[in-house]
């Protein structure tokens, strides 16, 4: 065989270059050359208190109490979304009242934000998962802004928050709510809001951009954080357990439809109050479940787990939350030994 007189060194060099380029492209895609990239790992790490995360627990909304119940759809949502969950009927729900804190032992009166995670299952095999909070707006417009907020609020620099607020004027409505809105003395009296917008797709294929809220049936009773503190660090859980034991607790689910031009991609901005709102059903909490061993523990209330008929919108947060929640889930399930299920549990 006649070979051209090319030295194998040239060929070997070429091969080395091809392989090195492939490896470099992979490393670049993985973010190894971009330490400034906002990864789920960085976002989740920023949630941790200075003492480090509570191992085995959700990285945020760590304190909570699980429940089961039903979502009773009244059928009115069917004109907005073809999801089975809006067809008149009752669908099993699993959810979790929680506090917006990375500390599972935080005293109730020290946490401003309360949350409500929910998973509604329908016979078609679909699930609708959502995680709402009681604030009427989100503090920031973008996921990088949220990361900056976490860094500023965890900073020892006394000017950090001041500088953050100056750089993020969108924070003002949330800041005003956090400072001035009354606290309630029960989860049962709180309104919970999706804040993020989603797209409902109806049977004709038409899209409606919406946000949803759970409106409490119980009349809100205001309480100062000081008075709430006097009732004990875990009052909210004791209270909701007691209320649910004596009667199911109810929330009306209200879906608000955006008008063209409304800020659908920015959860820090409320929509005008006159927007069309459709009451689509009632969420009924029937039974308080164990938290440590209960059915919520293994559920990630990932807001992008949606049935056909509900989709994400241009709001960038559901994607960021999905990525971060999954990271949190991966971490806490790997740390299960640090938050053991009680000895009686035989579940694998």
């Amino acid at each position, binding site marked *: *065989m*006649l*070979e051209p007189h090319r030295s*194998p060194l040239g*060929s*070997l060099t*070429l*091969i080395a270059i*091809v*392989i090195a380029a*492939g*490896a470099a*492209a*992979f490393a670049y*895609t*993985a*973010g190894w050359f971009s330490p400034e*990239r*906002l*990864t*789920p790992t960085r*976002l989740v790490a920023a949630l941790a208190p200075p003492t480090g995360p509570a191992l085995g627990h959700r990285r945020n909304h760590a304190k909570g109490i699980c429940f089961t119940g039903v979502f009773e759809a009244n059928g009115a949502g069917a004109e907005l979304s073809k999801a089975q969950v809006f067809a008149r009927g009752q669908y099993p729900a699993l959810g979790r009242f929680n506090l917006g804190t990375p500390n599972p032992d935080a005293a109730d009166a020290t946490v401003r934000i309360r949350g409500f995670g929910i998973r509604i299952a329908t016979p078609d*095999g*679909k*699930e609708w998962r959502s995680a709402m909070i009681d604030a009427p707006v989100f503090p920031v417009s973008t*996921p990088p802004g949220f990361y900056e907020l976490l860094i500023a609020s965890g900073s020892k620099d006394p000017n950090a928050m001041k500088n953050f607020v100056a750089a993020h004027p969108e924070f003002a409505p949330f800041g005003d709510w956090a400072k001035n809105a009354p606290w309630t003395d029960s989860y049962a009296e709180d309104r919970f809001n999706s804040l993020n917008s989603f797209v409902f797709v109806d049977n004709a294929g038409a899209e409606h951009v919406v946000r949803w809220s759970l409106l409490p049936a119980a009349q809100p009773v205001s309480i100062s954080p000081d008075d709430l503190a006097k009732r004990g660090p875990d009052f909210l859980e004791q209270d909701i357990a007691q209320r649910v034991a004596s009667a199911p607790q109810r929330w009306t689910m209200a879906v608000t439809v955006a008008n063209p031009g409304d800020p659908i991609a920015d959860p820090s901005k409320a929509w005008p109050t006159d927007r069309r709102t459709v009451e689509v059903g009632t969420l009924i909490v029937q039974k308080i479940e164990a938290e440590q061993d209960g059915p919520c523990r*293994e*559920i*990630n209330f*990932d807001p*992008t*787990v949606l049935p*056909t008929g509900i989709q*994400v919108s241009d709001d*960038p947060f*559901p*994607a*960021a939350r*999905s*990525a*971060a929640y999954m990271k949190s*889930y*991966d971490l806490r*399930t*790997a740390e*299960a030994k640090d938050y053991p299920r009680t000895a009686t549990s035989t579940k*694998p």
Partner: protein
Amino acid sequence: MIRFTPLQRLLHWLMAIGILAMLFIGVGMVSTVMPKYLTLVSIHKPLGIAILVLALIRLAVRLRYRAPALPADLPQPMKLAAYLSHYALYALMIAMPLLGWGMLSAAAYPVVLFGVVHLPSILPQSDSLHTLLWNAHYYLAFAFFALILMHVAAALFHAFVRRDGVFEAMAPVPSHEEVTPAE
């Protein structure tokens, strides 16, 4: 020279594109919180299942049609490396999608392929299983990519240095040498 059958070559190159895309999508999606995260995840799952299906077809085709023999003068260690790396590649092509599917099942996530197309859960929810499968899926992905780089290096070594017809056996189109009689 004996080449792989056209079906085998088609499967090889189709899967080469699919698997490389899959690995890049995988490391890309776990390192971002931007909206493309959801787009990448929504490609990752159905593409993974597509690769699983193609890999099983490919395994059957391989068992039916075998592979052309390696050159007789190939040093024994290289022959051994060729055999072992191909076993590993087949194992990973089949195992990676199953690990991902199992990992999602063990975390009680619905496994959605396209809008209405769901896969059943193949495992019960379990923290320890989820962690085991997640770790396997994650670290084997890097091992898979490293193996592919070695595979590419070996292919180019056969093509440019040894020029022994091994590369041409899997080349997508017949090369010049193949149609020109050896001098």
